[in-house]
């Protein structure tokens, strides 16, 4: 059990990276508290697996340090870090039984056989594997195998952190949900730190207490699912989380306020609007846009039904603005006016929110 600190972390797979883009991780400082459930969320190639491998010790960072509590583990191999990892594809020892698989990490560490038996049965019980203990691990389905991988991390009492590298990739859709809630349940039961890497926002937001959103080798925001949704600090977070993603519209400053195409918009971070240098944009989620009697004049282009609400696509000059309208509410045809919720409208400068 430990608090994990990543200090000034940088990593490149090249010996002498010539440009900034050759760094898989550009600069990271993260603190993970003991016992938390964290998710690393980002598109493919954003560096999240690299980060995970650095924490587990499979990779040594080019620069920076990894601390478990106050112990510098940067140079320690995985087996000395007391970590566990569940991989994208289930890793099981084919020739062993389920019992043998779960006992393997303990036996390698010369734990007395009596204690092994006790731990294995306890963990098998947690994972609903008790009735399969004596069958060959290779005969199990993908979700069963993934449970075994997880179990091999759980049996060890000394594990600092359990890491998951997109563990549900090969699981059938209807079982994903089951396994995900099982994971959440297990986290509450064992209280271990868990770090969950995924590119699926639903998985990240349902599993984690705090989500680290990454893009292009950088952390763009760390926050609770609610914070990420209501207060995205970066337009990337706005795009990547939520469906449909946040509306991002170019804006200009006039008379100390922000406006789009000459139409004044009230924003939440108006106090920060003093002569910012960079590309200015306004971000607002479709959930916080509504039709009104006056406001931004738009043309309704398309309405798509998404079940409990409808996604309305509108146009303001060259820009598209999406909004959500609940089932049963009417949608004006052609010309209409939009109102942005001032509390949820923010100005971004070079993609970062102005503060």
């Amino acid at each position, binding site marked *: 059990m430990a608090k994990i600190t990543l200090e000034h972390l940088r990593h490149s797979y090249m010996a002498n990276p010539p440009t900034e883009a050759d760094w898989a991780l550009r600069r990271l400082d993260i603190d993970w508290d003991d016992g938390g459930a964290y998710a690393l969320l980002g598109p493919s190639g954003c560096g999240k697996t690299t980060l995970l491998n650095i924490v*587990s010790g*499979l990779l040594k960072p080019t620069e920076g340090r990894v601390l478990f509590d106050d112990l510098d583990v940067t140079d320690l*191999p*995985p*087996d000395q870090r007391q*970590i*566990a*990892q569940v*991989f*994208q*594809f289930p*890793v099981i*020892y*084919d*020739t*062993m039984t389920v019992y043998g698989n779960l006992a*393997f*990490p303990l036996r*390698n*560490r010369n734990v007395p056989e009596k204690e092994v038996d006790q731990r294995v049965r306890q963990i098998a019980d947690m994972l609903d594997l008790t009735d399969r203990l004596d069958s060959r691990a290779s005969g199990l389905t993908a979700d069963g195998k993934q449970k075994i*991988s997880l179990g*091999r991390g759980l049996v060890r009492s000394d594990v600092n952190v359990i890491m998951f590298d997109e563990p549900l990739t090969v699981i059938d859709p209807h079982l994903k949900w089951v396994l995900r809630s099982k994971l959440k349940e297990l986290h509450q039961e064992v209280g271990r730190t868990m770090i969950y890497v995924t590119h699926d926002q639903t998985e990240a937001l349902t599993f984690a207490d705090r989500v680290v959103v990454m893009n292009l080798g950088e952390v763009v925001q760390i926050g609770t699912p609610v914070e990420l949704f209501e207060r995205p600090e970066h337009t990337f977070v706005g795009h990547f989380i939520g469906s449909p993603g946040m509306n991002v519209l170019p804006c200009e400053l006039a008379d100390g306020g922000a406006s789009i195409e000459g139409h004044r918009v009230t924003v939440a971070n108006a106090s920060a609007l003093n002569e910012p240098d960079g590309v200015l944009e306004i971000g607002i989620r479709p959930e916080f846009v509504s039709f009104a009697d006056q406001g931004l004049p738009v043309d309704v282009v398309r309405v798509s039904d998404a079940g409990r609400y409808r996604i309305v696509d509108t146009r303001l000059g060259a820009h598209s603005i999406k909004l959500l309208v609940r089932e049963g509410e009417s949608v004006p045809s052609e010309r209409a006016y939009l109102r942005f919720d001032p509390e949820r409208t923010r100005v971004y400068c070079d993609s970062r929110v102005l503060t």
Partner: protein
Amino acid sequence: MSKTVNQKAWFFVLPVLALVAFNAIIPLMTVVNYSLQETFGDNVFFWAGTQWFQDVLGSERFHAALGRQLLFTFTILIIEIPLGVAIALAMPRTGPWVSVCLVLMALPLLIPWNVVGAMWNIFALPDIGLLGHTLNALGWDYNFTRNPGDAWMTVILMDVWHWTSLVVLLAYAGLVSIPDAYYQAAKIDGARPWAIFRYIQLPKMKRVLTIAILLRFMDSFNIYTEPFVLTGGGPGNSTTLLSIDLVKVALGQFDLGPAAAMSLIYFLIILLSSWIFYAVMTRNEEW
């Protein structure tokens, strides 16, 4: 899941079937024909029944050749398989040396069999061969043309040199196909090198090793050219393996009937043992 059976598919197999018939089934049936009859040439045949089979199965000469054959095959398998796996484990998985190693390994396989025999013959000659001369200079009275023990050692050494590469290449292919995650998981689980070999590498290599053992078994059981060129089956009959003996009977003595019966017995032994071996190795598998 139930499988759909489409009988029409047999039509597509017909051309292959015809080909196989002409180059395997019909020649085989000719041999069956010879094995059941007696002939003195001129295409005159007399029915002999199972006489030749009884003769061959009861002959001490056949027993001795079969015994030598089994000893040879067993010895080379016991050497080549572990050695091949060990070399494959020692080979680099990435980097520029991979192709160098692979080419080096493939070289012996590219050499024609009779050339291998001739090479080793010269190599092992006691007076002028590098190996033979060196051994004698070291004080070992080595002479593979005179001493049966030396002849055996040389034949086995030659086979190991020629064919271990095949096992290496197959085992290596099995090794590189193991995803990295397995090694990473094993590291995290604290597995030591022996445990990694025992629980990851060996199980993952099982399929290719099954193929390797099967191929080496069949090939070594069939082996003819190399020992024939090297020792000619001698000294005496000491390295006369089954195939060499068969050729002696068929072409040396021109006993077509016994030779045909012997071929069939030989063929059935290989077929049966390969099948048993394969069935045992794969009994718990779904292929």
